């Protein structure tokens, strides 16, 4: 490239490189987490059997709570970042992009909190 990048452009490039890397790593982890979760909840057990009693028994083991919390956080981050890129690609008006991304981040943050509270406070 002929012209040197401004520090703002460079930090944007760095961010996108890390986002690319994050999508690969989180994607690989989610490959196992999401498919194992789907298998346990819909094939090994029937969905009508996954009652509060079922969850209570399962969450006696803190590792399953960690498993579900990882699925929650990585799912939101991976999906949220994916949707951020989709918005950048298809929404042409800058003000609409800002609005949609602000909505996305707020909803993702709120649901991250809701999910984390659910996992931590359930007895």
């Amino acid at each position: 490239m002929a012209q040197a990048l401004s520090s703002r452009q460079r930090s944007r490039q760095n961010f996108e490189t890390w986002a690319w890397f994050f999508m690969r790593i989180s994607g690989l982890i989610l490959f196992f987490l999401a498919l194992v979760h789907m298998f346990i909840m819909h094939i090994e057990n029937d969905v009508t059997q996954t009652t509060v009693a079922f969850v209570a028994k399962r969450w006696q083991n803190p590792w399953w709570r960690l498993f579900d919390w990882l699925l929650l956080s990585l799912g939101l981050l991976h999906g949220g970042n994916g949707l951020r890129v989709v918005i950048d690609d298809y929404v042409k008006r800058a003000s609409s992009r800002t609005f949609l991304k602000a909505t996305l981040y707020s909803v993702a943050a709120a649901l991250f909190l809701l999910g984390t509270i659910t996992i931590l406070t359930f007895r």
Partner: protein
Amino acid sequence: MSKSSTIYKGKTGQWAFILHRVTGFLVFLFILLHIIDVSTLNDPTVYNAIHQLYGNIFLRLFEVGLLFALLYHALNGLRVIMIDLWPGVIKNEKALFQFMLSLAIVLTLVGGYFIVKPFFVGVH
């Protein structure tokens, strides 16, 4: 020149890409709904009622659709990672796409059988 000849139709890579985005978007929307339904855990009546509802035939078919979206997105994601990591893979990306799509369809049919079956014959 006819109108259709000016529309870019792409090749397998483009279809793999579009399907990856659509399935990713659908799975993400489901995650949002799912976090809300699980948050009713501290109200057992509501939580159990919702999970009985998930057992009706329409939501079971929806779950089969979700399984396909998840499987396709996961398997095509592996394909994307392989293309990123190993330059030689791009030569076989079409075959790899066909393989991943077929595997997703086969696993959806197998899994779908187990998801829909209890509606007709009951659980176990």
